[in-house]
């Protein structure tokens, strides 16, 4: 799931996390402070009030007090609170009385009671019982001047509902603030992501464009951040690349044009020499042996040179993109048979061809002849007989029909190291660079001729020994391309 790992997602998650963390931390801290302050203040108020009232009312208690006296004191104490929520208990050596009759003072813990017994200070405790919180305060009443315990103890329970409500409101407020903060954070993250992603996306598009060969691709640089820097660097790189490629192409074009020009210039003197080789051949027999040998040599090499120059011209035209296909719909088996016959190879090569007119296709007949002649010639020269020329049809559908031409020989095969290079120009399998009958361009020209047809050619070794060259040509039958033409049916019927 690449989307989840995307910059946008990561930014959103990071922003949201930071926002949530900040909101929670801030909320928690302020909550704690506010709550402490609030409760502290309320309990300070209560304790101060309790002390003041005790100071005011305790002296009125008749000593030693009986239970009725204690109840009166407790009720008087409770009555001093204007809100009327105080519950007071007064005790005196085992006697106790509460401001509300029957109040069992369940919130009062033994620990607090013990603390009041042992210490003379005011003791308080916050008690959570059920869903409400209560503040429990206890104190021993001492004589003025602090000279001794009077034995009278006062306990007070105040329900802290108001304080609890304040705290709850605080929590709600913090929660309510966190949600918009999160939403804002996500929005900001998206905005930031867009700001970052737009140049990144532009950069990606531009890089693809360069990869597809449009080297003049440039980015619009705006702003002065790191991404603008990157865009600027990209533009510089692209410009440098374009310049180098242009230079390389220029050099290559010059090199190719040079090869083409050289071949072209060689052609005129060769035309003169080729015209008279027959004269030399005819008269060589009448010359003295040395001269005759020299003359025959010149004649033979002139013919080879002419072929080499012809091949060079041919390959130059492929390089210049000037090779034109002259397509004609022909019977491929007939074409292959004619190629063998024209070179006197009919008896040297086993041909496995489909019956007449079974496999027709639009090809350039001259180029097909060159392809087959080069491959069969190569098999006869470098392989060993029997050489098999096979033509079959392949293809997934009628629209993608392929003619498959295979040339198999029974020679030693092609060394593995040489296989990837067999279609290279002037490639010689051994370093000795021995000159063979061919120009060294035959297989390169074969590959180019197959390529202009939109086909493919490959070389391999057969498991049972020998090499196999396989050509696949798209058939592009005219009937398939342009529909059934007028008179085709009768034409087929009236063919000789």
């Amino acid at each position, binding site marked *: 799931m690449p989307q989840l790992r995307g910059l946008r997602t990561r930014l959103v998650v990071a922003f949201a996390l930071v926002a949530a963390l900040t909101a929670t931390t801030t909320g928690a801290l302020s909550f704690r402070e506010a709550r402490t302050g609030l409760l502290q203040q309320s309990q300070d108020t209560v304790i101060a009030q309790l002390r003041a009232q005790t100071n005011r009312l305790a002296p009125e208690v008749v000593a030693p007090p009986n239970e009725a006296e204690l109840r009166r004191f407790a009720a008087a104490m409770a009555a001093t609170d204007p809100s009327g929520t105080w519950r007071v208990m007064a005790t005196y050596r085992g006697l106790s009385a509460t401001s509300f009759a029957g109040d069992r003072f369940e919130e009062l813990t033994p620990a607090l009671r013990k603390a009041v017994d042992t210490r003379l200070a005011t003791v308080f405790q916050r008690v959570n019982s059920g869903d409400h919180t209560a503040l429990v305060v206890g104190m021993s009443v001492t004589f003025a001047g602090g000279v001794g315990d009077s034995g009278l103890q006062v306990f007070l329970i105040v329900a802290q509902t108001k304080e609890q409500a304040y705290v709850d409101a605080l929590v709600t407020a913090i929660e309510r603030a966190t949600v918009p903060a999160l939403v804002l954070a996500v929005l900001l993250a998206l905005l930031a992501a867009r700001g970052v992603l737009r140049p990144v996306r532009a950069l990606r598009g531009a890089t693809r464009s360069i990869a597809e060969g449009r080297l003049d691709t440039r980015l619009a640089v705006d702003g002065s951040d790191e991404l603008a820097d990157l865009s600027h660097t990209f533009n510089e790189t692209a410009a440098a690349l374009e310049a180098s490629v242009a230079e390389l192409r220029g050099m290559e074009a010059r090199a190719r044009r040079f090869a083409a020009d050289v071949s*072209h210039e060689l*052609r*005129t*003197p*060769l*035309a*003169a*020499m*080729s*015209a*008279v*080789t*027959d*004269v030399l051949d*005819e008269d060589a027999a009448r010359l003295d042996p040395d001269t005759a040998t020299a003359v025959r040599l010149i004649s033979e090499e002139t*013919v080879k040179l*002419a072929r080499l*120059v*012809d091949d060079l*011209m*041919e390959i130059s*035209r492929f390089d210049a993109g*000037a090779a*034109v296909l*002259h397509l*004609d*719909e*022909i019977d491929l088996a*007939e*074409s292959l048979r*004619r*190629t063998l016959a*024209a070179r006197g190879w009919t008896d040297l090569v086993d041909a496995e061809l489909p019956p007449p007119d079974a496999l*027709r296709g639009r090809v350039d*007949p*001259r180029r*097909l*002849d060159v392809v087959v002649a080069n491959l069969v010639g190569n098999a006869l020269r470098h392989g060993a007989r029997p050489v098999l020329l096979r033509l079959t049809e392949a293809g997934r559908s009628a629209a993608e029909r392929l003619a498959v031409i295979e040339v198999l020989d029974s020679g030693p095969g092609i060394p593995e190291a040489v296989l990837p290079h067999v279609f290279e120009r002037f490639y010689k399998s051994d370093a000795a660079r021995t000159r063979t009958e061919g120009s060294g361009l035959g297989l390169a020209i074969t590959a180019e001729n197959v390529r202009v047809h939109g086909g493919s050619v490959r070389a391999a070794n057969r498991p049972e020994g020998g090499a196999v060259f396989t050509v696949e040509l798209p058939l592009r*039958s*005219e*009937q398939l391309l*342009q529909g059934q*033409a*007028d*008179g*085709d049916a009768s*034409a*087929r019927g*009236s*063919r*000789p």
Partner: protein
Amino acid sequence: MPRVLLIEDDRAVREGVALALRRQGHEVATAVTGEEGLELVRSFRPDVVVLDLMLPGMPGLDVCRALRALDQTLPIIMATARGDDEDIVVGLEAGADDYVVKPVQARVLEARIRAVLRRVAGAPGESGIPKLDSYGDLTVDRAGFSVTLRGAPVALAASELRLLMTLSASPGQVFSRQQLLEAVWEHSYHGDARLVDACVKRLRAKMGEPGYIETVRGFGYRFASL
């Protein structure tokens, strides 16, 4: 003794080709420029012209057109560099009968010259007895190697005449370009099919309507059985 006019600007090629052709028994006249060649057509009266397309001064293609304007039937063989594809097509449409690619061996050029001359071998009145075939308004004299359309003679170049005679010999039968290359031009099966297309185009232009020669798409041409 066929008479060959060779128009070629390069001295070595001119001398080499002329030497080779003379040894084959041709009578050869040479010209360095197109203008000189056109002059020689009048004085030398060649049976066939071998024309280099790359000439200084008057371009080879213009020379070809001028030769056709001068003589509708004179066989013309262009000598070109392979790859000069445009020139070949234009040259064929301008009326050249055939072309060879330089550098060319003497025996190849010689074979082409013989082939193009065979196309006009039967001069009118040679056998004396015309062998006439009529197809609508068109009459072909197979013995006299002449064609008339509505009674008027049609001046056809060698390859045009041979092509028409080949096709009309079997009306309705489809000939592939390769078959016609072999039958008319005596080229190999894998020769240049554009020779056929250009020649058919010229023939149709000279014979006008109705279309005697039909294109059978995907196969070739046939003579309409009217």
